[in-house]
């Protein structure tokens, strides 16, 4: 009944959402504990008494979230660029099978769905950090870091798509 792509997108988005939300809460608690910042828990979440404390905790927590996102995205990019079934080398295939890590080799459909989901998270996070920076709730460098990461990972993803297209063209010839 449901579209196959939509179901796959929803399926692939659940784990990263939980992972990123956990990263956000854990990093916020971690920063508060490490820097010993005064705060109170309310319906709105963590409420800081001083503006400087709020800026500090919010910025470092957002940065931690970006790092967590980068770890997940790097895993997807590694699978796309090195272990993609359309352009993996025969020698590496033999090594992967010898190590019994054949789950690393995936087809284009799975990899592109995962890449799209994780990149969407990165774009939305970048957009949210830029908006929060404009409202003075985050340091500027957090937005710049996110923007740089978005450019780098987009470039890597496009590079993989290019390799896929060229591989398909070679097969046709």
């Amino acid at each position, binding site marked *: *009944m*449901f*579209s196959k792509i*939509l*179901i796959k*997108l*929803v399926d692939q*988005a*659940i784990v*990263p*959402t939980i992972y*990123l*939300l956990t990263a*956000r*809460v854990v990093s*916020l608690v971690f920063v508060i504990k490490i820097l010993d910042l*005064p705060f*109170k828990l*309310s319906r*709105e*979440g*963590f*409420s*800081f*008494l*001083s*503006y*400087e*404390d*709020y800026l500090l*905790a*919010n910025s470092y*927590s*957002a940065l931690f*979230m970006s790092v967590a*996102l980068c770890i997940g995205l790097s895993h997807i990019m590694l699978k796309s660029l090195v272990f993609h079934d359309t352009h993996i080398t025969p020698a590496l295939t033999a090594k992967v099978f010898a190590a019994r890590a054949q789950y690393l080799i995936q087809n284009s459909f799975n990899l592109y769905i995962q890449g799209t*989901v994780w990149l*969407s*998270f990165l774009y*939305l*996070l970048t*957009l*949210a*950090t830029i908006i*929060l920076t404009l409202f*003075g*709730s*985050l340091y500027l460098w957090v937005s710049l870091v996110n923007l740089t990461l978005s450019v780098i990972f987009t470039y890597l993803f496009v590079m993989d798509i290019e390799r896929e297209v060229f591989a398909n063209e070679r097969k046709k010839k």
Partner: protein
Amino acid sequence: MNHLMDRKYLHIKVTSDILALILFLGLLALPAASLGLASFSGTGSGTPSVAGVEDINENMLEDNDVPESTQATQSSQT
């Protein structure tokens, strides 16, 4: 009859796809929305360094200053 069944099936399929899309977009937006988990209440002893607040305070102080000429007239009347 077949035509009606097809239309019904299509209607259900489109509705379910829209619901799945909304669910997917909701999942995507959750981590970005969690950036609003922290907030600034401003009720503490720390002085907020939001641009403009200090200027407003200074302006209020200036307004409360009574000019010397007014003070002189007030003292002469008493």
